[in-house]
């Protein structure tokens, strides 16, 4: 069932493409030696190059190029050994050079593809058109002064990767899944931190609508959307607006719009139409970027394991598709899980991580990178389950105590005497007491009221403060009642 929006004239399909701007993780900027760290004092990480001073020459940062190549490889894309920078000319207060050095005609990365997984478990391939390197602009602050904007150039010149998709997405969900997938790949690769609320990843969303079987209609671009949820909302809001325009007999014209997150609608940007006349030309300050194929091969050989490969490995270990998906969403979660599972039953480890551990993270509002229980301690708890020291319910008690105290499970078992009783003789003694105290119920059971069995197990467990081995308790109760 494909996604459509119902208009007055019937159903409409959506066509969506994304341009993702991802800030490259590097120490220094793309063309200057100034630092890239987030949150520094204003204008303290600015070279004369970044500030557009006359007579300065850009020199490319090798690590930024390597990061773009790694990303291209992670997107199953073509790496172009010959690429070139172009000048994109426009005036804006946060762009001191009066142009952005970008790649227009010859990007460093060509066509690729990623696979997204949707809520119903189906997968879909989304084409990547290209990835190119470019400079980020400075930052404007509008809330510092009544009539002025303040400009901080710390971000000016930081390397950005612009990742352009094919118009392959057909629903808000697909757009969200694609953005999530790209962010996941970038984080696994360590090429972008993907922090959308710090602005290190932002998306421009291209949306058009059409009737089934048509070619493409005119699209509009919703700029600078800064969360996955907002991307999904912006897609739907913009599609509904365009449907309204077409159905009222008017025409959608190509323009740049903004998503008003408070009102949930898109609105036209006031910029004049010639803002789009960028007059690109080859960047005269930079010779072409030429890569050695050996260098690219070395980068490829050193790539970390990517989410798809990791997920496949987890299902091969016997995990459900769902667990494998959830555990690989974030690299930190996968690393945590693997520490827990190392040398242990992978399925048991997956159950505990996705079950009690995730629930604890939610409840305590903690993150897997700052876990309330270490992976080593959770692993040790699994060992105590496997060697029958703890029953399932005792293990849950110990886990809660671990959350409270941060102590190792062995220590908690020792301190609180939570060790499971597997001594049949001890269990038999308790069962005998329970039966003696409930002679009437024993008689009822023996005359056929067999559902009382659970009562005896419960009473025995209660008397043992939950420490009896459940399987053994069952067995002993059954034998004793059979008399």
């Amino acid at each position, binding site marked *: 069932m494909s996604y459509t929006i119902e208009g007055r004239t019937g159903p409409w399909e959506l066509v969506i493409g994304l341009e993702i701007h991802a800030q490259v993780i590097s120490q220094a900027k793309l063309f200057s*030696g100034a630092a890239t760290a987030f949150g520094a004092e204003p204008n303290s990480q600015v070279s004369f190059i970044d500030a557009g001073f006359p007579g300065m020459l850009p020199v490319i*940062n090798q690590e930024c190029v390597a990061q773009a190549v790694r990303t291209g490889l992670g997107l199953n894309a073509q790496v172009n050994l010959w690429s070139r920078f172009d000048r994109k000319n426009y005036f804006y207060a946060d762009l001191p050079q009066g142009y952005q050095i970008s790649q227009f005609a010859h990007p460093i990365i060509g066509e690729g593809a990623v696979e997204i997984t949707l809520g119903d478990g189906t997968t879909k391939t989304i084409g990547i058109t290209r990835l190119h390197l470019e400079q980020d602009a400075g930052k404007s602050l509008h809330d510092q002064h009544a009539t002025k904007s303040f400009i901080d150039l710390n971000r000016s010149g930081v390397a950005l990767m612009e990742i352009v998709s094919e118009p392959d997405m057909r629903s808000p969900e697909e757009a969200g899944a694609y953005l999530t997938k790209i962010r996941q790949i970038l984080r696994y690769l360590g090429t972008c931190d993907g922090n959308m609320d710090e602005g290190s990843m932002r998306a421009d969303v291209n949306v058009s609508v059409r009737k089934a079987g048509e070619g493409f209609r005119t699209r509009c671009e919703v700029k600078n959307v800064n969360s996955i949820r907002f991307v999904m909302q912006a897609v739907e809001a913009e599609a509904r607006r365009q449907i309204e325009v077409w159905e009222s007999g008017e025409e959608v014209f190509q323009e740049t719009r903004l998503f008003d997150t408070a009102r949930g609608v898109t609105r036209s940007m006031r910029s004049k139409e010639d803002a789009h006349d960028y007059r690109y030309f080859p960047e005269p300050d930079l010779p072409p970027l030429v890569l050695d194929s050996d260098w690219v091969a070395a980068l490829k050989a050193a790539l970390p394991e990517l989410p798809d490969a990791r997920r496949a490995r987890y299902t091969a270990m016997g995990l459900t598709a769902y667990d494998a998906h959830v555990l690989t969403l974030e690299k930190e979660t996968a690393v945590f899980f693997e520490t827990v599972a190392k040398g242990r039953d992978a399925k048991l480890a997956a159950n505990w991580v996705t079950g009690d551990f995730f629930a604890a993270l939610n409840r305590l509002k903690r993150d897997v990178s700052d876990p309330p229980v270490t992976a080593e301690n959770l692993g040790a708890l699994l060992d105590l389950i496997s060697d029958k020291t703890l029953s399932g319910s005792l293990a849950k008690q110990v886990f809660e105590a671990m959350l409270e105290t941060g102590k190792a499970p062995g220590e908690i078992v020792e301190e609180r005497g939570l060790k499971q009783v597997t001594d049949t003789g001890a269990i038999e003694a308790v069962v005998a007491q329970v039966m003696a105290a409930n002679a009437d119920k024993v008689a009822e059971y023996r005359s056929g009221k067999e559902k009382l069995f659970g009562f005896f197990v419960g009473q025995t467990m209660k008397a043992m403060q939950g420490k009896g081995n459940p399987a053994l308790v069952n067995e002993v109760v059954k034998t004793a009642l059979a008399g």
Partner: protein
Amino acid sequence: MGKPRQIKDFLKKMSLDTATIRRIASLARIRLDESEVQQAQAEINGILGWIEQLQEVETEGVEPMAGGSPVAQARARLRPDVVTDGGQADAILANAPDRQGEYFGVPKVVE
């Protein structure tokens, strides 16, 4: 003679009228008065004519060059990823027409 011929025809058509000159000036944020428009038109069309002349050189099958001889084409030098610059806000802001604390002040720009 496929490609060069096409470019040549294109350039012939590209003799720029005054409206285009005004638009280019406006995009470049350069103010031209009427006599300057005439002058710029003559100069730019002169340059286009010169490029048209260059188009007569047969370059079919020759790779575009970035400079230097065909065997020693320039390629971008790459520098290591090391922080070597910054920490000079005063110098960066020294020529600001409207310094506001540690920021550049500009007329309010809000979309």
